[in-house]
């Protein structure tokens, strides 16, 4: 396992280098920049801007800038946010907690809901509940996340609710943790969870249903039934166990969608994650922040894929990485 892990990490390095080139190129192609916008600000003198330029080597050739930026990343320095006048890494760490919390919680909730629903729809294929669930699944797949968010906000506002947007009501934002604050968070949390998770829930539910139907028609299920095992044992120990394994690789493939959903949901619902941060930085051309966040989302994706592969090896005894 150790050598497999090492190999995966070594293979990821050239990919990450290429990603850094792409990310840097995209930012270089952007017309204008934060400092160009600053030129129009009468309160900032031309000398100040020239000084900033020199300080961050922005007057140097492009490849020097790239190497400087890359060298910084290796040392853990992601550059400086012109917009916030603070180092990028500090700003990202502040938002990373909520981002990972939201994404991880969504994965958990998605699986806890989608697997039983998938099993249910596979066992009761033509019932009205299954039809309704399938419809919700199609709805989830065919509706962009931001539209789901708008619809939920609309429904909550129509029914007289106010717990939309953000993760806390104003009076709890800076309050210390308490039971009331926790309840307030739960009241806000369900909207982002649905917005981010609906897509994944629908996919996993459909896949679980298809896998289970596949497995149930296998010979070893008939054998298990023929030797007189209880239906409960046949279903849970033989069928479901085998039907879940392919889903774990699917979880890895779902990660990019999950990250994208988290970003757009956070922008619409103004959640304190990296989503609105990326959006503001893009609009203000705060280049170091944008580059750091793009790199970070790629790293998150790679780590997630690696975790999914390791989990698969742990769950499925037939798979061994050596």
């Amino acid at each position: 396992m150790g050598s497999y892990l090492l190999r995966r990490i070594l293979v990821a390095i050239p990919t990450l280098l290429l990603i850094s080139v792409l990310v840097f190129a995209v930012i270089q192609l952007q017309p204008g920049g934060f400092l160009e916008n600053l030129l129009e600000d009468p309160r900032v003198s031309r000398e100040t801007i020239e000084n900033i330029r020199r300080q961050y080597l922005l007057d140097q050739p492009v490849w020097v800038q790239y190497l400087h930026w890359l060298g910084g990343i290796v040392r853990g320095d992601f550059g400086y946010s012109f917009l916030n006048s603070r180092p990028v890494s500090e700003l990202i760490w502040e938002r990373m907690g909520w981002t990972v919390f939201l994404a991880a919680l969504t994965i958990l909730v998605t699986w806890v809901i989608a697997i039983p629903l998938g099993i249910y729809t596979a066992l009761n294929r033509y019932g009205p509940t299954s039809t309704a669930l399938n419809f919700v699944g199609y709805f989830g797949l065919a509706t962009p996340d931001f539209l789901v968010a708008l619809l939920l906000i609309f429904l909550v506002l129509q029914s007289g609710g106010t717990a939309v947007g953000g993760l806390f009501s104003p009076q709890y934002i800076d309050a210390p943790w308490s039971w009331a604050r926790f309840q307030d968070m739960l009241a806000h949390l369900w909207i982002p969870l649905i917005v981010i998770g609906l897509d994944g829930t629908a996919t996993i539910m459909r896949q679980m249903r298809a896998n289970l139907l596949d497995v149930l028609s296998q010979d070893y299920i008939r054998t298990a039934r023929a030797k007189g095992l209880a239906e409960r044992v046949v279903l849970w120990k033989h069928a479901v166990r085998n039907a879940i394994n392919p889903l774990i690789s699917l979880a890895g493939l779902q990660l990019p969608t999950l990250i994208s959903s988290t970003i757009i949901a956070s922008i619409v619902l103004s959640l304190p994650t990296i989503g609105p941060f990326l959006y503001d930085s893009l609009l203000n051309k705060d280049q170091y922040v944008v580059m750091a966040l793009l790199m970070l989302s790629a790293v998150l994706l790679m780590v997630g894929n690696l975790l999914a592969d390791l989990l698969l090896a742990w769950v499925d005894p037939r798979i061994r990485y050596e």
Partner: protein
Amino acid sequence: MDKRNNPLYLAWRRFLRSKPGVISGVVLIALYLVAFLAGFLAPNNLAVQHPDAVYQPPQRVYFFRDGRPVRPYVYQLKRERDPVTFISIYREDRTRPTPIRFLIAQGEPYRFLGFKTNWHLFGVAEREGYFFPLGTDQFGRCLFSRILVGSQVSLTVGVVGVLISFAIGILLGGISGYFGGWVDTLIQRITEVLLSIPRLPILMALSTVIPASWPSTYVYLGIIAVLSFIGWAGLARVVRGQVLALREVDYVTAAVAQGASNLRIILRHIVPNLSSYLIVTATLALPGYIIGESALSFLGLGIKEPMASWGLLLKDAQNFQSLSLYPWLLTPGILIFISVLAYNFFGDALRDAADVRSRD
């Protein structure tokens, strides 16, 4: 050849057996027809502002007067102020019934197939009042007309984007799978890089490369370019896998033995055998482009005024206040939902009809 053995005919028969597939096919044809005729079907010009009808709710169409069927008519709306909240509210002005006229020529001319015309299928005579079937936005522009004209952008972005992605994907995926070696390694690395960054952040970053000074038609092409730039990677990977499998097939070996050139083998022997597979993949990839464009435009990073697209129209519903006061601004979302759903069902039915799953 006997018609019953023609594979295309057989696939068509299989397709007709899928009810959701046929219905979505009809829906898609209808949607594209509407987009094509948008200027004619829209009662108002998409850019004309009505300062006296800002945020006007949808007008109800009446078919009966005093219990008797009459020519369809609407009531003009009167703006009043709520005495307590000072929010403007609209009330039907029962003294002003306005008949809906069909085939009327009025208003700003629009372009249709290169001609300038101002014929509209229906509308209310300008001197008699307004007709806004789905209400208006913050500038008093007709939402219904904007949705119709916006469909031209929203529905074509996907098709053009998929075509470009496919051209690149087939070429690079084909080369990668056919030649192997270092070319393969290089192309695979590039696709891996593009697939390793989550879609939305990189799309957002790429769309800020488009200069703000560009006219909206250039921005439209720019958005298609951005979507295709990311989209081809997944397709190239799929094509590569298929080509790798087909390269070993007997008829390809035979073509090599006859001295056919590499390009000829790829284009004449391998790609035609992948065509059904490619068409199905393209159809199923299309919704991703529609959703991608709508998300970008919704965030203000995509299509810009004076063009319209469904995502851009939804941007007006972004703040919580307009969402609760003017819920009709959400209607463009219904069209995104319908078109994406239709493409999904249509693609599923095509896949079953072409029976390409067995080749995976």
